[in-house]
């Protein structure tokens, strides 16, 4: 790792101030960032840890019934504390990485990083969640802007993510065997006003909504409604672990399974 200063503010305001320094970078749980630093692929002047900010931690239910999760809440906490209020999201959190990674990694860190194979982006986009930062609220549909790219500005911190709770939802993850990220992950949420399907791991531009499947399922919510639906392999990732065609096929299979799981 290159040398950097370490700061651990205890309020959002102090964190924002610290991040105003040139080349300062926020540190969530560090489960992706620290390996990146070890490879010397990033050279921040300082790392501003968000782990000491109490107001950014925890799962709570808002007045409108939505589930708000603090940006510095670990995957393990979400898996445990959202199990009653939003079981499908809790289940997703419980499938990220491994137990030790889940004890450190945070929702804010994962969403801000927007790894194309990460689980949370599918949950956030599939739920139509709202990303709350220190300055504004961003709809999930506007937030994810391609692999490792988001609507966040320099120094902007995800303070919480607010999830409307669907009638039913399911996350279906097919493991990339080495990293155990999603080779394909599909988060399907069924709201009163329609179905949302978000896919991670597969798309060359990162997480995406599968509109054709949503339309088909809105017409008729049953597995066979997807029978003739396939994503275009051209836009899928093809690599060592699976071809474009295979990923396109898995998107169908995982979506179908998500439908079955929510029937």
């Amino acid at each position, binding site marked *: *790792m*290159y*040398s950097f200063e370490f700061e651990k503010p205890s309020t959002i305001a102090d964190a924002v101030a610290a991040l105003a320094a040139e080349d300062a970078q926020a540190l969530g749980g560090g489960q992706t960032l620290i390996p990146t630093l*070890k*490879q*010397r692929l990033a050279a921040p002047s300082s790392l501003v840890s968000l782990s000491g900010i109490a107001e950014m931690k925890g799962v709570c239910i808002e007045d409108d019934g939505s589930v708000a999760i603090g940006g510095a809440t670990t995957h393990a906490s979400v898996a445990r504390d959202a199990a009653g209020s939003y079981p499908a999201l809790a289940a997703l959190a419980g499938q990220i990485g491994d137990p030790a990674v889940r004890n450190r990694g945070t929702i804010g860190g994962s969403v801000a990083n927007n790894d194309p194979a990460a689980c949370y982006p599918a949950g956030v986009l599939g739920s139509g969640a709202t990303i709350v930062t220190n300055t504004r609220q961003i709809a999930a549909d506007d937030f994810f802007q391609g692999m490792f790219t988001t609507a966040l500005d320099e120094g902007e911190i995800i303070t919480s993510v607010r999830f409307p709770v669907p009638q039913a939802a399911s996350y279906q993850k*097919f493991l990339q*065997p*080495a*990293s155990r990220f999603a080779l394909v992950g599909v988060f399907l949420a069924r709201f009163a006003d329609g179905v949302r399907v978000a896919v991670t791991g597969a798309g060359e531009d990162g997480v995406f909504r599968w509109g054709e499947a949503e339309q088909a399922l809105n017409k008729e919510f049953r597995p066979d409604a997807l029978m003739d639906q396939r994503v275009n392999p051209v836009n899928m990732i093809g*690599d*060592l*672990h*699976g*071809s474009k*065609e*295979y990923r396109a*096929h*898995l998107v169908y*299979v995982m979506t179908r399974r998500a439908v079955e799981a929510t029937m």
Partner: protein
Amino acid sequence: MPKDSGIGASSKRREDVRFLTGAGNYTDDINVRGQAYVHFLRSDIAHGRIKSIDTSAAEAMPGVVKVFTGKDFEGVGGMPCGWEVTDKHGAPMQEPPHPILAQGKVRHVGDPIAAVVADSLEQARDAAEAIDVDIEELPAVMDMKAAAQDGATLVHDDLKNNICYDWQLGEADDAKVNDVFANAAHVTTLDLVNNRLVANPMEPRVAVAEYSRATEEYTLYTTSQNPHVIRLLMCAFVLGLPEHKVRVVAPDVGGGFGTKIFHYAEEAFCTFAAKACGRPVKWTASRSEAFMSDAQGRDHVSKIELALDADNNFVGLRTNTYANLGAYLSTFSSSVPTWLHGTLMAGNYKTPVIQVNVKAMFTNTVPVDAYRGAGRPEATFQLERVVDKAARELGVDPIALRRQNFITQFPYDTPVALTYDTGNYNGTMDKLEAAADLAGFAARRAASEAKGKLRGLGINCYIEACGIAPSNIVGMLGARAGLYDAATVRVNATGSISVMVGAHSHGQGHETAFPQVVADMIGIDESMVEIVHGDTSKIPFGMGTYGSRSLAVCGSAMVKATEKVIDKAKKIAAHLLEASEADIELKDGQFSVAGTDKSVAWGDVTLTAYVPHNYPLEVEPGLEETAFYDPANFTFPAGAYACEVEVDPDTGQVSIEKFTAADDFGNIVNPMIVDGQVHGGIGQGIGQALLENCAYDENGQLLSASFMDYAMPRADDVPFYGVDHSSQTPCTHNPLGVKGCGEAGAIGSPPAVVNAVLDALNSGGKAVDHIDMPVSPSRVWAAMNG
């Protein structure tokens, strides 16, 4: 009844206590006062000509002690290859130089270009980034068949082509082989790839070297399976140092699996630099570095043809293999595709005519050398896949076809240079059929199908040649080393024993199993015997641990040394008991005079040896004996494995539902440890079959360069394994009758897994002949929909 101590007992491992409490002493746990750290600047391109290296900026960086490049090693030897293979025309293999740091060209991603020694590791890394290297990129030589063509880009400019050797074993008369195939009732042909693997012991490699100006002695602590071999190679071939001034210590080593056999450039570098810098020098590989600097395994592309007569007897076998050696010859690389591979092509079968052809290729990839099984998994995979395919083509039961062709008479001279001393392949298959409940498979398949899954059963037989090996024979075959081993049994005055052994334990449990043998021979408690290993200053000599040889070879040396000790102790006992030496018997730690009640205890005899007041004048005081043991033949463990898989037809996902191994290891010293060795081998074999794939792109970039892309088997990828080793035909030529068990699982399991997947697909109406490993969901799905 299982024994509770001595040979045959599942004694609990004494070494576990330190490992379980964090008290192990691995190489990276060793720090030497004043040590500096080295970081290697490694090539990020696969093939290129070095135009210039400017280290001046790096040398001026904070904390930098010294910067080395290839120039600093001109006149110093290169990394040696320990086995000269002769090609089929009688010419020696092409043997290019392998410098410690690149000279002239870089030849694989990870090839070290320069080394920075600095006060801290991060300073060394900082300075390495300041080295200015100008490399003219050349086309990467990646595809072995293309590399063998005339006019192909050369990995080594001074060689005539990229073919290290074109080797043949077995029937040399092509016309005779052609005849066999022309007259066969059936010929089964298969093209297959044995995927390149990375051994990935959990402990990355480490080297710490120091030099004493006072004594002019070097000490190298290194993660090695064979410290004496490292000392010999480094002193004799690389650095030109007197062996008596060099101590090599391999302390606790966190797994080896072959990849820590070899003498690596980093070891020689640290030793050299410790003197050049006047400071101890430490190198700790990161895992990423391991992926591009540890010798890798397998990587064969083969065509195999099996000829059968009208009664389904195997009448001929021919193989043509391209074996990837990578960019340089690693220590034992040349022996793997040849004498450890071609010799195994008879397998368990009495095929009368066999011809094995191997072209070994240089490519712009990390060097390839022995990995658990080393050549034998490659042989077994080809043979057992083609036998399985033949059974399917002929519509016969794969077990019946194998049984029909089993060798049943021993000793058996194979057409590929080996003499199997003993075995009972039908007996072992009987054990497998019972242990794996093959009778119940149909019901299990029905249950899987009811869940929408395809279920397959895969059978595999293997034979391996272990206990490497008679020095005179391997010498004739090109080995540049003897392959005996040594042990010293030092009995202390109070009767406790230190046994200095040349084998090295890095997971195999020697510290527990070896004392079981010595204690059993004398009849004393195991706790009175301790093993000393891994330090050239404490041990007479040793060729180390690999090829499932430790107990068969080093254990035999230990038995011989113990016998010498007992013989001498009997002389002393005879004197004390005033009896004839011939009448002295040793049992349960008591020397007694046959037919009398006169006896003297082990401890009294050992004390007498060191306090020789009442002592036979013709006998030297003391009680310590050394023995070297050179094996008379290889040992031939063999077995039969069964794997049951479920395939999810929607995704191609394969899950191992049941795995059973029946092995014949001859006699067994510690069944618990033997089972553990088999489990581990199966785990790695399942890894090769389903998950692991060291892949490069066409430019020689390593695609699977970390655990993020190289899929290691995890706990939920594998089931509990059934292990049966009650089929035992003891080795006929070593004193313990042992054969070796370390590699069996890795040899026996990959074909069983792949055969099972294909059985599952075919049961579902998919006529799929073959899928290359790793049989990933993507590949299974493609095969089903191809």
